[in-house]
């Protein structure tokens, strides 16, 4: 995985995650972030804005499609590659 993309996306997660949940890495499971179900959608929107991509999923689909932070990084990586 692209480490710059990885740290950029983790930084966006950190703005929302419960500090008590500990440091975030690509291996962090989404349910361990301590975020409200709708916050994940907000994080996805932040990612879309930052990287100019569109992850067109409903809130439910987002939770079902991705298990970890790394899954989202991979998805963005794929979308960025498709743009080139």
């Amino acid at each position, binding site marked *: 995985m692209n480490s710059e993309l990885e740290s950029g996306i983790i930084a966006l997660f950190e703005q929302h995650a*419960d500090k*008590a949940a500990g440091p975030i890495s690509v291996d962090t499971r989404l349910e361990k972030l*301590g975020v*409200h179900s*709708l*916050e994940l959608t*907000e994080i996805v*929107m932040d990612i*879309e*804005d930052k990287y100019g991509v569109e992850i067109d999923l409903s809130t439910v689909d987002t939770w079902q499609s991705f298990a970890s932070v790394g899954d989202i990084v991979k998805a963005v990586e794929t979308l960025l590659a498709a743009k080139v």
Partner: protein
Amino acid sequence: MSAHREKIVITGMGALSSIGASAQSVWDSMREGVNGIGPLTTIPVDGLKGNLGAEIKLLPDIGLDHRRLVTMDRFSHLAVLAADEAFKQSGLELSESQQLRCGAIVGVGTFGGISIDEAYRAVWPEGKKHPPIFTVPKAMPGAAAGQVSMHLGLKGVVFGVSSACSSSNHAIGTAVDVLRSGRADVMLAGGADAPLIFGVLKAWEALRVLSSEPCRPFSANRAGLSIGEGAGMFVLETESHAKRRGAVILAELAGFGMTADATDIVAPGVDGPARAMRVCLEDAGLSPEDVEYVNAHGTATKANDMIETQAIKLAFGAHAQDLSVSSTKSMHAHCMGASGAIELVACIGAVRDGVIAPTISYQSPDPDCDLDVTPNFARERPVRAAISNSFAFGGTNAVLCVKKY
């Protein structure tokens, strides 16, 4: 009204305002005449003509979960804090089946103005593609009732009430009806509002009713209102329910009255408020002479205080001259939909402690406001019954009565 009807009692209270972050500290400050109106320091005031308000500098931390907190606008947060305090004081512990018989009605006069301001800023000046995701569930006025229900596990009658500045009293009065009708055993009721935010303050500024100095209710040189934030929540239950569980009863919520002016969206009338006071006394089974204290709506606008004086005289007749009247808005400012709830703390304090909270910042008598408005200093006086007036834009009037228990 029916004499055999079951009494409704108050067994818990919680409140927050600029003069205290608990019901007891709010009452202590009221007795001492603490002025909670001053320069705003927790919100940006650039672009506002004035910078005065009554803000709560620091909210108590009761360990609310992050996932719950991110979904709340400040007005809901205030409601939850006040409800938490009231519920703890009541000593209630609810089983799963009891939860189904308990509810909450929360009055909110404004809405989640903070969330709406953030949303508009995001999509307009900041040019973002989307506003924050919780904008809708945070901004809706009914959110406070829902959040209180989630926090305390109340699964019965739960909804929000909105009637501008009389929202709290309508909420509490409606909760009394819910209990009298047998739809619930226990109701958390009150109000909350967090209007100290640029967009809302700018809108009030446009109305040209804000005072450039802390408000002076009933004073001849009064020059408009001051706006504050806060919440007040009360545990109400039938007397038999409270007695069965051995609860400490703080006061009786003896009655309430609701009327409308049906004349103008902003200009107050005399007849509507006077009728609301009379209906309230009738509902409580009291004569004017049974009441010692009136917590006035007392906004400190020229029109309100003069008209309220006339209305009190119309409702109480000759006894009006024997009443102690005060506007505690002189201390905690006009907390919009939370006003009536915070002011109920003054009424409960009056019947329990025999102390009338003062109208502070009072400077000069106004012949149009010639009742005893308890200027500047608290007064000791035994109080058997007190009423609390709330009159709102929209011409909606709601008056509560508490009796010593």
